[in-house]
């Protein structure tokens, strides 16, 4: 949008007449200027692009690690499903390694990150974990026959949609927060639903239980660990990104080389090309502020969270 510059349109005749009192931006004064007079102070209070901050390329490349980590995790999960289906991976191996890694991750979070855990909280966590997994074990025969009437194509299509929702709606907050909560419910639910659909294609109850317990650990608990690791140091973040990339590539190499190529291209695009693109289009940003903006009412601190803007 072309913002007209005041001096281009300034009315010429009036300011040269020294007998005229200067024009004032008031409505109740009868001034000797015509109604469409444009003063040199026209649009003085206009502020352009005050809230815009410039981005640094390498910092953005570093930050894109969060996204690529998540996409790698989805790819690894799909690879594990394919291995299970092709009997390359035994369900018992999956269950034991999954539980072991979860235990290690939990102890890591517990001792290294937060030092406030009390003994009874650990007992509560252990109790709820046992309860959860036994329920899952009990439900796996039902979940195995959940989609027996549905065709394969529907399952693959639904799974793709759900994983897409998971990737799109995931909470990619990368700066550190003191208290990390479970990642956004829409994305986690989509991922769990997708894994239920996939699990229902497997043959034995143990397979189903293995995949589902791994899915819960992978999509609900692993993101929390990733956030803690992120806060640790930048080197850990970069190592984690590369590690996950390597694992997903290694796992998919045996399945399909085309997917590996596509995935590597996608990874390069997100990590290197997208930040450059964002910085490139920042120059088209045109943010306008002025006295006509709706003011934000400033209340005392204690009341600020109670009165949020509603769409009235």
């Amino acid at each position, binding site marked *: *949008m*072309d*913002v*007209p510059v*005041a001096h281009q*349109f300034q*009315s010429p005749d009036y300011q040269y007449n020294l007998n005229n009192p200067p024009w004032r*931006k*008031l*409505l*109740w004064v009868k001034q000797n200027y*015509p*109604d*469409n007079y*444009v003063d040199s102070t*026209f*649009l003085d*209070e*206009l502020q352009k692009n005050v809230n815009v901050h410039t981005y640094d390329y390498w910092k953005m490349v570093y930050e894109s690690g969060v996204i690529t980590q998540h996409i790698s995790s989805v790819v690894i999960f799909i690879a594990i499903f394919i291995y299970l289906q092709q009997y390359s991976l035994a369900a018992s191996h999956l269950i034991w390694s999954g539980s072991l890694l979860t235990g290690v991750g939990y102890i890591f979070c517990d001792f290294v990150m937060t030092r406030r855990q009390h003994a009874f909280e650990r007992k509560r966590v252990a109790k709820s974990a046992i309860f959860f997994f036994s329920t899952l074990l009990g439900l796996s025969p039902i979940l195995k026959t959940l989609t027996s009437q549905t065709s394969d194509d529907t399952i693959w299509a639904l799974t793709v949609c759900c994983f897409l929702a998971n990737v799109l709606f995931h909470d990619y907050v990368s700066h550190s927060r003191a208290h990390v909560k479970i990642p956004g419910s829409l994305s986690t639910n989509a991922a769990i639903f997708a894994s239920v659909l996939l699990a229902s294609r497997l043959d034995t109850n143990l397979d189903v239980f293995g995949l589902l317990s791994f899915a819960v650990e992978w999509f609900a608990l692993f993101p929390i660990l990733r956030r803690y690791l992120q806060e640790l140091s930048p080197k850990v973040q970069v190592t984690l990104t590369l590690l996950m990339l390597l694992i997903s590539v290694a796992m998919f190499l045996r399945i399909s080389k085309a997917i590996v190529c596509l995935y590597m291209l996608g990874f390069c695009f997100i990590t290197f090309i997208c930040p450059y693109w964002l910085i490139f289009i920042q120059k088209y940003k045109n*943010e*306008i502020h*002025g*006295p*006509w*903006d*709706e*003011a*934000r*009412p*400033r*209340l*005392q601190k204690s*009341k600020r969270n109670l*009165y949020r*803007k*509603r769409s*009235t």
Partner: protein
Amino acid sequence: MLYNICMVSDFFYPNMGGVESHLYHLSQRLIQRGHKVIIATHAYGNRTGVRYLTNGLKVYYVPTLVIHYEATLPTLYGFFPLLRNILIREDIDIIHGHGAFSALCQEAILHGKTMGYKVCFTDHSLFGFADASSILTNKLLKFTLSDIDHVICVSHTSKENTVLRAALSPRNVSVIPNAVVASQFKPDPSAADPNWITIVVISRLVYRKGMDLLVAIIPRICNMYRNVRFIIGGDGPKRIDLEQMREKHLLHDRIEFLGSIKHHDVRNVLVQGNIFLNTSLTEAFCIAIVEAACAGLFVVSTKVGGVPEVLPTHMINYAMPEEDDLVIAISKAIHMIRYEEVDPSRFNDELKDLYSWSNVAERTEKVYDLISQTQEAPLIERLRRYYGCGLYAGKIFCMVMALDYLFWIFLEIMLPRHAIERAETFPYKKYRDYFNNNRSPFSQLSQQHELEEQEDDDKK
């Protein structure tokens, strides 16, 4: 020079509001100056067809589908045949549209320019640039105002805002403020309760009018001053928040809710107060504070939008839209009222001269003189103006406008001009003279009103 003017807007009587009263009073004054004025608006319920208001103001209530807050469903070409018929019947020279929200007005501007009439537009509101609805409305406004003869804004801030939104040349935008009929808001110093200092708030109770600030400051003010009470008029979604606040702090004897107030009762509510409080977060031109000052109240308002331009400094205390600042400003005002450092009952005499409808009509007439001298642009020039709206939008708007032109040619052939019967012009002067000479009690009231206004005119 005398013109035949057609005012077009979605917002008119029987709806009550700022735009509506602006239209009514401006039209009445223009009729008094000798012009012919008709108004085209959409039908309100059963009220369709042609109606005559005071002094022969002819209103066409066009039957259209109404959506959301009295705005018509925009159909682009649906209104064209009827509008053309109205304009030819009444021999119109100038079309004057009001209100950016009004789809009827935008369509009338588009069709008016296609038919070759002189068109001008008055903008009554401020818009932001950041949220989705603003971006869309601004683009549409850019479209309709690509080809317009003149724009009128109600304050200097509104002029800056409109120039940016519609990418206009600032020389084509005039600032003509709103006005108030001062005789309808005469002060009454005896009506306020001398035992209390009464703060009056009359507005729609919505977020945009700063109701959150009001909820925050009322308990603090009531706590600080023992003899201050509040009267709150108007209704809206935020009324619940205010009532909750009253319950929480047990201020039932200090706050009174009057609900929705009819326009003719506003003055009677205003005179019961000493201070008028306005906490809006954005205002193009706040007519409410002018009405309050006329009625003899001292004004405290947030310093947003066009508000700093409206009242002289001795009639108003400003505050930032912040809770603490408002409390300070109100405290100062209470102090001034208590120790009689200011005499608000004299404001009416001052404001009577500063804001009068005859002044607005005179300035509007100058705008009409200006635009009636402009040359009519050829079609190719008009297409060029629409083309500059944007990379993709420009091309779409050109197509819309070209189709409009073809539709007009079609109408000219199918419903030719000579077949449309011209309407009789209402005999304004004869009607007024008849009423002035006639001694019926009904006419005495309007006669008194007219005489008062003529006195004010003569004084100038």
